[in-house]
């Protein structure tokens, strides 16, 4: 065992990379849940985004186009969820599960020709002086653009929810859809937009895994990250900045356990690989005492006829 081989600066830098897909998916789901909808299909939308982004990047040679395609793919899949829950009034838990099962199958089907292909890489930020700074450089100034985008998105969502009229309406719909409807807000329209936003974010999170973090395509490669993102929203008590904190915490756990595996710690690899999931459960237990911050209409369907 050689713990000195672990470089703390590189550890933090790679922690940020590991956290980004989680953060993207969690921020998207946070907005969805704020509007009062529980979409358990995050895992399915992520994996569809992962293969769509990967395929378009390989075909076009442009990771940027790939990311745009992944957002579109995620949003398109989320439209199926819209159809089921918002129009057909189906149970949201079951519909979310259906989305995940369908997404996993469809992605495996689409991805057949892409196993073992290497995607073109996305350029990294390279500022003349700043990126070369000893400790701060690798941590703050030499990542890929999507990582910064995820942080900017967190700030954006926070600002919109807190300071704008649109954010207030979104929260109103999530807290009490009957009242919002009575006030003349289009509950259905607002929720559909929120669900599609969540789908786009999850799709990009998936593409981040297949294009930057791994970068490769394998079947079922999201390996529960979508579900951890769902747990993260609970962890964050539906607050964007806490989602960022949570994502970095979980990213940290993942990276540390990978580093420990590489360093040859006496704990078997399988037990280390379990740790992110076990820690998710632990955190859920600790935080589940406080349910007060959950949107009041979460998971309830709305039909104007009532």
């Amino acid at each position, binding site marked *: 065992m050689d713990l000195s081989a672990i470089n703390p600066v590189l550890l933090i830098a790679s922690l940020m990379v590991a956290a980004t897909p989680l953060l993207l998916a969690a921020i998207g789901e946070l907005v969805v849940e704020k509007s009062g909808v529980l979409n358990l299909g995050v895992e399915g939308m992520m994996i569809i985004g992962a293969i769509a982004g990967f395929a378009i990047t390989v075909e076009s040679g442009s990771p940027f186009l790939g990311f745009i395609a992944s957002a579109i793919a995620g949003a398109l899949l989320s439209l199926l969820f819209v159809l089921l829950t918002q129009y057909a009034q*189906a149970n949201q838990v*079951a519909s979310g599960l259906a989305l995940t099962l369908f997404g996993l*199958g469809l992605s495996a089907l689409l991805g057949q020709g892409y196993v073992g292909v290497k995607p073109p890489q996305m350029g990294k930020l390279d500022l003349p002086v700043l990126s070369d700074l000893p400790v701060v450089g690798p941590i703050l100034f030499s990542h890929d653009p999507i990582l910064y985008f995820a942080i900017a998105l967190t700030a954006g969502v926070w600002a919109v929810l807190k300071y704008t009229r649109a954010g207030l309406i979104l929260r109103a719909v999530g807290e009490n859809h009957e009242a919002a409807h009575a006030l003349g807000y289009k509950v259905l329209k607002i929720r559909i937009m929120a669900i599609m936003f969540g789908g786009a974010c999850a799709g990009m999170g998936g593409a981040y895994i297949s294009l930057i973090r791994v970068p490769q395509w394998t*079947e079922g490669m999201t390996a529960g990250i979508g579900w951890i993102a769902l*747990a993260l929203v609970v962890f964050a008590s539906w607050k964007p900045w806490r989602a960022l904190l949570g994502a970095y915490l979980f990213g940290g756990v993942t990276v540390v356990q990978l580093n420990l595996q590489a360093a040859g710690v006496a704990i078997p690899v399988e037990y280390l690989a379990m740790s992110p999931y076990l820690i998710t*459960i632990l955190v*859920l237990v600790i935080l589940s005492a406080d349910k007060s911050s959950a949107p009041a209409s979460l998971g309830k369907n709305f039909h104007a006829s009532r």
Partner: protein
Amino acid sequence: MIRLEKRPQPSQAWSLATPLVAVLATMIFGGLLFAILGKPPVEAIRTIFWEPLFGEFSFYYRPQLLVKGAPLVLIAIGLSLGFRAGVWNIGAEGQYIMGAIFGAGAGLAFYPMEAVYIFPIMVIAGAFGGWIWAMIPAVLRTRFGTNEILVSLMLVYVAEQFLASVSLGLLKNPEGFGFPGSRNLQSYPSAFNAELIEGSGMHWGVVAAFIAVIFAYVLLRKHMLGFHIRLTGEAPRAAKFAGVNPTRLVLFCLGTSGALAGLAGMFEVSGPAGQISIDFNVGYGFTAIIVAFLGRLHPVGIMLAGGLMALTYIGGEIAQSNLGLPAAAIQVFQGMLLFFLLALDLLTNFRIALRKPEAV
């Protein structure tokens, strides 16, 4: 303009018809999907649904129907109890794995002794393994109010890692030349879950599945507990006033579904699969969710749905070898079925009406 009117009572006729309509719609859209993949659609659908039952090699495939259907039905029966009461156990895959590990572990502990009581001990150990794994989300929900959906799902990934760990370590075959995986239980008579009638596919797991169907039917129809389960799902407020104990209900629903999933895993590992290996689980725990919904959460319905799902598995394998249909296409096909089912449920609860011109 089309408008939805809520029915005062869910329609009985549509409730029975939607699974059939959903299967038909899936066949049509699945055919389209196969056509896009460049496979003959009618031929593919026929291969999946007809070939295993009445084709040239049906004598081989028909027993497989029981072998593949039994774990699906066993797991889905357990899940349906919880789904009816609003208890969402979606980690059956993990409970299935743990049941297999516990069951196989108990059997291998006696190796190479031969005795009649070894198999019953394995059955109990398997059920216990699944039960204890499901008790984790159950206790966390009743004690701390933790979301059982997320916890039970996280435990699937933990169970998968544990499976890898035991097949490389604890349960590894000492005579296996260093390959991962346990001893083959098929060559250990006391632990082998053999076919009860040669060539029928009927093993103890199939018997257990039929018993579970009957047990669930009686429970839901004739027993107070079953009534409480239905009441909690359909009218939570009424259940509260009727004095239903939610803690006991959650523990019962998760515990039963865990034990049944564990049993399914144990029967699989000691019979058709034969050994604990890294890739032992094939997603029965997730497919069972589709089975439960397709069967309308009703025991008899689940039995039929389990058979149909087993058919798509077997037919899918035939289509894979005969037509070169990718394995993932079947997964998409099964996902599609759940979609259509959920969407068509609309017709059970709502009536589609044309909007009359509104009087001013």
